[in-house]
């Protein structure tokens, strides 16, 4: 693998050395601002933008080669968004109507997002298609979101508009769909903006690739601002001389809340690289940080891994990462060795490992739940493996030679929020005991839009949000030990087991409740998705056809390979209520395939 990577990298450096002919006359927005910094103490998003527009900072968009392509200072964003809002008034929509936007990393997306808020509408970001051969399934996913949100308007730029058009066909709620250019052609209606109220919905955040049961998290202005305050004051301790850099997609909570909205509500500048461009040439992100002296940049561990894999000695010489003071790490289980490898690799480029800032959060709590202390680096503890499995208890390692697990300290809840650990019956557990992670506070969603069933599953009495993650508290700090079996993380993508089972059940040969999906981990941490199907087919050709079809579908929908195992009917273990148990299905698979070392405490706690 490594030799391939090195070879692949060779033409890359040449390409970068031969720029910057096309940089034209654009200048990125500066880091120092001309107005006094306010740290998210606003009632609403539009209030925050009105203030940010008094300064000179803003958003900057770079292309794959590292050239600055467009600059959107907050004052232009305000102006453009207000004009677009006046055009949106042509549709005469009731306040709170939903507006769907396919969110690539572009100034147009941000302008539309804020235009919706000025016009009293609720925007939500839809993903861009990233998988080979995913056309059909992507359109179904879009349609699922449009229907679940009952969106009135849907927008996409020209590159993605034909997908949107296909998705809109057959939906009943969408009364207009178009590109931003088409919206620009509508007249401006001179209607006075009504102020938004903190109790109103600010936006929806979709969290699942399901076509049948998409879940749109409802976030109010109040929840958003509460979370942003926690992030920028407590988590990042944002200062006037900070500058952010980001490749995170605008349709994910960390990308949108953490790297679009948080910089704006603190009036600092951001440099953006499209996710696709980062994925292909991850070092561009580091070059951007180095060149523009950025101080805040977040990534999932997988993004850091890509950087470590691709960097060569000659790349390191041209990088200076010493300005990077907050390297936020979140969005998936943090494996400390990924951070160590990154720090080791980039130490010579000035990266300070104290910059690592592990945090924990989820879209259902707007974004952030806990932050470790900024500037302290990644702290972890060694836990005795056997005690963890036998007693579901985190005992600090007593003696050498015993098998151990290392877990990263994700820090403490942001102010006004509480985290507790509970057992299967909802009883609160004491420190060091492993159980479900629940969170309570003003950042927690009001529910999933139009989906009382899923809302009921996630929000427990007292408005405690069940995060679906497993962990323990130690001296007030949160440690995540795993996710339940219903979420599988592969290469940084969070995939819901239910969504894959749903796909399988769309096949005529697969009956409902006869598919079970889970992830198995290699010793080196690689996760493989396994799909076990109860199957009545006897012909070898038919069985192979089903396997191939399922693998192809899963790839198209989620961009991952999977193992498909066909088993005889009644093989999959069921609970007393007839529900499939993914946990038991996994144990069965492991026994059949002799992967005994896989048996682990992490995946207990089936829903």
């Amino acid at each position, binding site marked *: 693998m490594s030799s391939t990577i090195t070879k692949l990298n060779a033409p890359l450096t040449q390409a970068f050395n031969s720029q910057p002919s096309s940089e034209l006359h654009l200048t990125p927005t500066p880091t120092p601002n001309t107005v006094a910094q306010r740290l998210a103490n606003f009632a609403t998003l539009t209030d925050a933008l009105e203030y940010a527009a008094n300064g000179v900072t803003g958003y900057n968009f770079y292309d794959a080669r590292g050239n600055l392509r467009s600059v959107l200072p907050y004052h232009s964003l305000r102006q453009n968004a207000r004009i677009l809002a006046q055009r949106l008034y042509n549709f005469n929509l009731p306040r709170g109507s939903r507006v769907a936007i396919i969110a690539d990393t572009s100034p147009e997306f941000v302008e539309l997002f804020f235009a919706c808020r000025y016009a009293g509408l609720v925007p939500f970001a839809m993903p861009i*298609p990233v998988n*080979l*051969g995913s*056309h059909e399934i992507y359109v179904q996913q879009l349609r699922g979101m449009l229907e679940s949100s009952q969106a009135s308007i849907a927008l996409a730029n020209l590159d993605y508009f034909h997908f949107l058009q296909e998705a809109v066909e057959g939906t009943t709620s969408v009364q207009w769909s178009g590109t931003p250019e088409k919206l620009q052609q509508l007249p401006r209606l001179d209607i006075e903006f009504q102020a938004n109220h903190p109790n109103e919905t600010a936006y929806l955040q979709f969290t699942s690739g399901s076509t049948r049961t998409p879940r749109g998290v409802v976030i109010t202005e109040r929840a958003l601002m509460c979370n942003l305050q926690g992030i920028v004051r407590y988590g990042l301790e944002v200062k006037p001389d900070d500058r952010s850099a980001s490749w995170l997609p605008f349709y994910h909570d960390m990308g949108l809340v953490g790297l679009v909205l948080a910089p704006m509500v603190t009036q600092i500048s951001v440099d953006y690289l499209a996710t696709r461009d980062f994925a292909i040439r991850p070092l561009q992100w580091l070059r951007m940080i180095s060149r523009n002296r950025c101080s805040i940049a977040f990534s999932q561990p997988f993004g850091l891994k890509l950087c470590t894999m691709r960097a060569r000695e000659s790349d390191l010489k041209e990088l200076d990462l010493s300005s990077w003071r907050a390297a936020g790490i979140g969005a998936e289980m943090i494996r400390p060795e990924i951070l160590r490898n990154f720090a080791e690799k980039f130490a010579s480029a000035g990266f300070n490992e104290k910059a690592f800032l592990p945090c924990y959060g989820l879209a259902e709590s707007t974004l952030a739940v806990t932050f470790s202390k900024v500037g302290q680096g990644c702290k972890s503890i060694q836990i005795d493996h056997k005690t963890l499995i036998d007693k579901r208890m985190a005992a600090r390692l007593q003696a050498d030679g015993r098998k151990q697990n290392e877990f990263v300290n994700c820090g403490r809840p942001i102010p006004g929020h509480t985290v507790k650990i509970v057992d299967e019956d909802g009883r609160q557990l004491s420190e060091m005991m492993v159980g479900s992670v629940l969170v309570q506070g003003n950042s927690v969603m009001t529910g999933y839009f139009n989906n009382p069933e899923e809302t009921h599953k996630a929000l427990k009495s007292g408005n405690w949000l069940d995060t679906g993650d497993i962990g323990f508290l130690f001296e007030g700090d949160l440690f995540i030990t795993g996710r339940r079996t219903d979420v599988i993380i592969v290469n940084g993508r969070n995939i819901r087991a239910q969504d894959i089972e749903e796909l399988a059940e769309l096949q005529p040969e697969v009956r409902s409740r006869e598919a079970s999906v889970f992830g198995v981990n290699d010793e080196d941490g690689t996760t493989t998705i396994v799909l076990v199907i109860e199957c009545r087919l006897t012909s070898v050709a038919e069985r192979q056809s089903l396997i191939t079809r399922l*693998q192809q579908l899963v790839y198209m929908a989620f961009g991952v390979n999977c193992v498909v195992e066909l088993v005889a009917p009644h093989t999959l273990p069921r609970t007393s209520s007839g529900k499939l148990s993914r946990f038991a299905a996994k144990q069965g698979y492991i026994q059949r395939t002799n992967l005994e070392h896989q048996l682990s405490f992490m995946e207990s706690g089936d829903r």
Partner: protein
Amino acid sequence: MTDSDYDEILRLLCDRLSTLTNSELPITPDINLITQLSIDSIKLLNLIMEIEDTFDISIPINGLTDVQTVRQLADLVYKIKSTS
């Protein structure tokens, strides 16, 4: 762009895919990237990067949604190359 350019693209893709995937199968134009070569996301990124650098083009992400076989990938590269 000529037919020989197309053949060249196809030949190069087959060649690169065979190295990238260590496939036992001979890489033919009709081979399915997903089901037969199990191209995962990292391999795909490597392949795109190499295609872009070799042919000096930019592959739009939305172009890949209709690509499943090696031939379809060659068609896409050819199309982008001839319009750029």
